């Protein structure tokens, strides 16, 4: 099967800043694909190259096998949900949703019918007459989604679509987007800087750093076997020991300095720098005697929160099997 989208050696620079540097990847039909990375890592530029808002300086973009590198956005069968929603403020919700159909001269009756369908799909059935200014953030988000999906695009591009919503609404929308994607079977390309979001929603995640992809993997593989120090730290905040190994905080035990180390474990002594209570878990930041800062994450039960204050001496230990060897950066 032809890939829904393929980027081949795409490079895009703004002046001296190289935003996307020789990036290649293919996205399969019907896949929920996330581009994850900190701001300035090139993920949004990549999305804009796919949408056609940016032209690659070199390399090519393929949409279902067709080279669209020079095609303007209005000639590409992809639609975008923008970070700021980009709803037209001078149009009603209905006119916003039907915009893509109207510019293609679809008859008014059909516009109306499909818009009603779409608005029902995003649970805004009776909001058609409102102006965007009269909607809440979550509602605007849904209108933006309906406006893009009504065109039945081959690929839906989402640029940090949940960034402006509060936590509860975010989690609801994450689930809804995932269900919607499964139901419609459209390829989703999702840009986010939130690793939790990327892990929970995606079939595959591309981790971006400084214009390049550090790792492209399924969420489970990304979490279990980070390949680089950056990927290990950015996804799930793993500890990087001696620059070569990743150890997840939840695999690190905190023990008394006097306690002996069981066989098959690595042991480090150090001083607690800080602890943070996070509800289900408590994080401990420990400066080891060889100068590394290690974070252990333990369930907050009585046995671990035994009155260890910053400044206390502790021993950290973890099984050899929990050390993941990293490729050199």
């Amino acid at each position, binding site marked *: 099967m032809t890939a829904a989208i393929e980027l081949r050696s795409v490079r895009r620079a703004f002046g001296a800043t190289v935003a996307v540097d020789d990036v290649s990847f293919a996205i399969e039909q019907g896949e929920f694909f996330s581009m994850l990375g900190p701001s300035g890592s090139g993920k949004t530029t990549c999305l804009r190259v796919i949408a056609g808002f940016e032209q690659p300086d070199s390399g090519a973009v393929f949409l279902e096998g067709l080279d669209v590198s020079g095609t303007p956005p209005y000639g590409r069968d992809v639609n975008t949900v923008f970070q700021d929603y980009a709803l*037209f403020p*001078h149009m009603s919700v209905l006119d916003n949703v039907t915009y893509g159909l109207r510019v293609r001269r679809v008859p008014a009756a059909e516009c109306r019918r499909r818009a009603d369908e779409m608005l029902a799909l995003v649970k805004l059935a009776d909001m058609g007459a409102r102006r965007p200014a009269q909607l809440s953030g979550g509602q605007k988000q849904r209108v933006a989604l309906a406006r893009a999906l009504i065109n039945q695009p081959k690929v839906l591009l989402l640029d940090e679509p949940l960034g402006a919503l509060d936590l509860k609404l975010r989690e609801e929308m994450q689930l809804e987007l995932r269900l919607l994607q499964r139901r419609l079977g459209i390829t989703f390309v999702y840009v986010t800087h939130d690793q939790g979001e990327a892990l929970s929603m995606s079939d595959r995640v591309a981790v971006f750093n400084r214009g390049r992809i550090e790792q492209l993997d399924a969420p489970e593989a990304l979490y279990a076997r980070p390949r680089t120090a950056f990927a290990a730290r950015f996804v799930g905040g793993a500890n990087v020991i001696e620059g070569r190994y990743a150890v997840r905080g939840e695999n690190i035990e905190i023990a008394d300095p006097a306690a002996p180390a069981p066989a098959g474990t690595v042991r480090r002594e150090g001083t607690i720098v800080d602890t943070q209570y996070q509800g289900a878990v408590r994080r401990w930041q420990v400066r080891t005697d060889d100068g590394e800062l290690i974070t252990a994450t333990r369930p907050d039960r009585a046995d671990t929160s035994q009155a260890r204050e910053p400044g206390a001496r502790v021993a950290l230990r973890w099984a050899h099997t929990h050390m993941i060897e990293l490729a050199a950066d």
Partner: protein
Amino acid sequence: MAAAIAAGAAPFPPRALATWFHRRPLLAAWLLLVPPLLWFGTVYLGSLFALLAQSFYAIDEFTATIVPRLTLATWAQLLTQPAHLDIVLRTTAMAIAVTIAAAIIAFPIANHMACHASGRMKAFFHVAVMLPMWTSYLVKVYAWRLILAKEGILAWCLAALGLDGVLDALLRTPGIGGPSLTSSYLGMFIVFVYMWLPFMILPIAAALERVPRSLIAASADLGARPAQTFWRVTLPLAMPGIAAGSIFTFSLTLGDYIIPSVVGAPGYFIGMMVYQQQGTAGNIPLAAAFSVVPIVLIGIYLALARRAGAFDAL
């Protein structure tokens, strides 16, 4: 910080006073607002209404003095005398033509300033647009008189390009033509458009500046070609700016009396009529009535613009 204050001079106003006002924000706001409101109310609105009231005063035909007796005679005279109506229509037609031309010329410039130029280029455009307004109005009008003269540089340039036939044809056109550009409505139109163009460019640029780039991108993303994006998104969102600019160009044209008296055909304009009636003719009521006309026209214009949806984007 505290030490620095203690070491320096006592702050003014005293902190206690500032705190007292901080607790009474409404009082502070009113104290700041009342003086300018008084000034605005008396000097601007007060004098304006005093002037308008004069249009209902009677004038003694024999002594040509104003009698504070209410009458509609002046208004009847304005609305029934064909010569007066001609002046109103001529001025309005010119104002509409100037406004449309200014909007068409201003839009691409404003669009470039707001959406494409950045940094130094943007600053350059703003200065370049405002630069002509820093020189004397009269100098510019008389300069245009020389430019447009029969032996002026414009005619010379057109002749050098072999386009003098076009100019002659334009000058022969009834209604806008005349013996030369300096004594035709076409010449007056050119000067008006030149004079008021910055007043149109700046509001449009300000309106376009507020349009998020993502809206233009979204329109293209949804399949709209650039021309469709312009008509459906850019232009409607720029409408408040165009409306604001056109209020300037429209009212400035309606009220001006210098350009029509220095450049252009002999027909009278509202501004000239006001100037003449309140000056040499001494007919203050008629001058006042003529000054009401632009206000009424602007009111009608705004109502029409509002109905057409020009302010929907606000």
